[in-house]
C-alpha cells in the first residue's frame, strides 16, 4: 500500500497532491507480483532469457565440438551434465538450445500476431460480408488440430528445417489470434470516441491504428505469452519427429530424438533437454496466467 498519491492539506484549505500519480502499468505490475506462481514463472523466464542471450559466454564448451573418447559419459567434473553420443558437452548444448527455442517461439508468434491482427482488425472493423467470409476461412484453418496441421504443411512443402517449423506454426495460430483480436475490436468499436472520430472525419485506417489497436493489446499479450511456450514445445515436438531442426543443431527436441536410443546406457542425456523444455513452458504458462489475472481477472480470453 502507499503507492497511491498522497495528499496534504495546503494552507488555503484545499488538497495538494505531492506524489506522482499512479499509472496503469504500475497497478498491473503490483497486481502481477501478488501472484506467487506468476513470480516464480517470471523468475524462471528471466533465467532462461539470460541463459539464451549469454549462451556463447557461459557455455563451457562449443556445443558442436565432439570429444570422441568421452561418449555418453555421466555428469563429471569435466562435463557437468555429461556428454552425448558424439562426446559433445550436454550443458553447452542445452544452453545453446535455449537460444534456439526462444527465437523459434517468439518468431512464430510474432508472425502469427501480425497476420492475425491484420485479419482480425479489418474483419472486426469493417464487418459485413467481408467479416463473414474471412472468419469462415479462419474457421476452416482452425478445424485442423495444431500439431497435425503444422506437420502437414511441412509435409506438403516437402522441406525440413527450423525455418519451416516457424512458418508452419505461425500459420496454424493465425485464426486464433484473428478471432481474439476481432472480439476486442467488436467491443472497442462500441466506444463513443470511435464514433466521435468517425464523425470528425478520421479515416478508417487511422481510427484502427490509434483507437482500436491499443484495446486489443491486453488479451493478445496474455495469449501470446502462453503461446510462446506452446510454440517452443511444438517446435521441439516437430524436431523430435525429425521434421524440424536438423543435426547437428543443439535444439532440445532434436537432442531427445537423437538420444532416445541410448536410454539404457545413459538416461541422463534424455533427462536434461526434456527438463529444460518443461521448465521453459511452465514458466511461460505461469507468466501468462499471472498476466491474465493482473490485467483483468474477468477478461475474456477464449
Amino acid at each position, binding site marked *: 500500500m502507499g503507492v497511491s498519491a498522497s495528499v496534504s492539506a495546503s494552507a488555503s484549505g484545499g488538497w495538494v497532491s505531492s506524489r506522482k500519480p499512479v499509472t496503469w502499468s504500475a497497478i498491473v505490475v503490483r497486481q502481477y507480483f501478488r501472484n506467487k*506462481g506468476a513470480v516464480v514463472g517470471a523468475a524462471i523466464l528471466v533465467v532462461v532469457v539470460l541463459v539464451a542471450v549469454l549462451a556463447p559466454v557461459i557455455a563451457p564448451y562449443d556445443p558442436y565440438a565432439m570429444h570422441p573418447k568421452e561418449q555418453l559419459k555421466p555428469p563429471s567434473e569435466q562435463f557437468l551434465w555429461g556428454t552425448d553420443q558424439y562426446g559433445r558437452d550436454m550443458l553447452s548444448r542445452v544452453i545453446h538450445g535455449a537460444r534456439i527455442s526462444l527465437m523459434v517461439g517468439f518468431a512464430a508468434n510474432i508472425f502469427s500476431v501480425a497476420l492475425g491482427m491484420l485479419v482480425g482488425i479489418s474483419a472486426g472493423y469493417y464487418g459485413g460480408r467481408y467479416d463473414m467470409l474471412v472468419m*469462415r*476461412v479462419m*474457421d*476452416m*484453418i482452425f*478445424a*485442423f*488440430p*495444431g*500439431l*497435425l*496441421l503444422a*506437420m*502437414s*504443411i*511441412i*509435409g*506438403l*512443402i*516437402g*522441406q525440413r528445417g527450423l525455418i519451416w517449423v516457424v512458418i508452419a506454426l505461425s500459420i496454424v495460430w493465425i485464426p486464433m489470434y484473428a478471432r481474439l483480436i476481432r472480439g476486442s475490436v467488436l467491443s472497442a468499436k462500441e466506444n463513443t470516441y470511435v464514433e466521435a472520430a468517425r464523425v470528425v472525419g478520421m479515416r478508417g485506417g487511422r481510427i484502427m491504428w490509434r483507437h482500436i489497436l491499443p484495446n486489443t493489446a491486453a488479451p493478445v499479450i496474455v495469449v501470446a505469452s502462453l503461446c510462446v*511456450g506452446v510454440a517452443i*514445445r511444438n517446435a*521441439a*515436438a516437430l524436431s*523430435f*519427429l*525429425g*521434421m524440424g531442426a536438423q543435426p547437428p543443431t543443439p535444439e532440445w*527436441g532434436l537432442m*531427445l530424438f537423437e538420444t*532416445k536410443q541410448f*536410454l*539404457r546406457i545413459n*538416461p541422463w542425456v*534424455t*533427462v536434461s*533437454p*526434456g*527438463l529444460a*523444455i*518443461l521448465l521453459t*513452458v*511452465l514458466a511461460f*504458462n*505461469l507468466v501468462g496466467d499471472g498476466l491474465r489475472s493482473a490485467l483483468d481477472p474477468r477478461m475474456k480470453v477464449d
Partner: protein
Amino acid sequence: MLKYIAQRLAAAIPTVLGVCVIVFSLMYFSPYDPVAAMANRFHLNAEQISNLRQELGVDRPYLVQLGNWFVNLAHGNLGKSFVQSLPVLYMIEARLWTTAELALAGMGLATVLGVGLGVLAALKENSLADSASMVVALIGSAMPDFWLALMFILLFAVTLRWLPIVGQGDLKHLIMPATVVALTEAGVIARTMRSSLIEVRGEDYVRTARAKGLRERWVIWRHALANALIPTVTIIGINMSAVLGGVVIVETVFSREGIGRLVVDSVLFTDTPVVQGSVLLASLVFIFVNLGVDILYAFLDPRIRYGGNR
C-alpha cells in the same frame, strides 16, 4: 432439439467442403513435385516422366484436378500412396482402430483424473490439497509429452521391466501410451473443472438448495456438478483435437501402428496422398467431435436448446 442438431450439421458442411479444398490446394500449390522426385529416384527418361504425369493426372488445370479429386472422394477413393502403391483408404483403415483405442482410452482416463482432481481441489478450496492439485495440473499441461513418454519407458520398461515398449493390441501395450496422453490433458480439465465448480457453488440456486436443508452431498451432485460440467465438456471437446496431435507423438515413441505414425512417416517421405488423406480424416473427426460436443452441450444446458443468445 432436433432443429438445433440440424442447424449445426448444416453449418458444418461448408466447413468440411472448405477443408477439402484447402487440403487439395496445399498439395497443388506446393513447390514439391513428386514426379520429379520419382524421376530422380528411378532414373526415368522423358517419355516415362510424361506417362507418369498423365497417369497421376497432374498435367491438367487446377479446377479439373479439384473436380477429379472430389469425384474420387465421393467414391471413397483417396488415391494411392506414392511410397507403397497401396490405396490410401486401405492404409488408413488398417490403422484406425489402434489410434481410436489410444485416443479414447487416453481421453477417458484424462477425464476421470481431471474431473476428480478438479472436484477435489474445488471442494477443498484454498487448502494445501487445492494448491498441490493445481501445481500438478500446471506441470501436466506444461509437460512435453514425448519426454514424459521417454521417462515412462525409462521407468516402467527399462528399469522395472513391467511393461513392453513397442507394439499394440492388448492392455499392457495400451497402459503407458494412454497414461501419457491422459496426464498431459488432465491438467487443463482439472483446472477448468475446479474454477467452474467454484463459480457454480456460489450461485443462488445452490444456496437455496442448502437452505432447503438438503444434504451437502446431494446438493453438490445434483445441482452444482451438472452445471459445472458444462464448460468442462466444452474443454474436453476442444482438447479432442489436441489429443489427435498428441496421439501422433505417443504413437511414434511407442511404435504403435496408428494413423498418427502414418502421418509422420508420410511427411518424412513426402508421401503426399497419404498426408492429404490423413489430414482430411483428422479434420473430419475434429469437426464431428465438435458437433457432438455442441449437441451434448445443448443436452446439458436447456437454454442453448431453445435458442438463447449465443
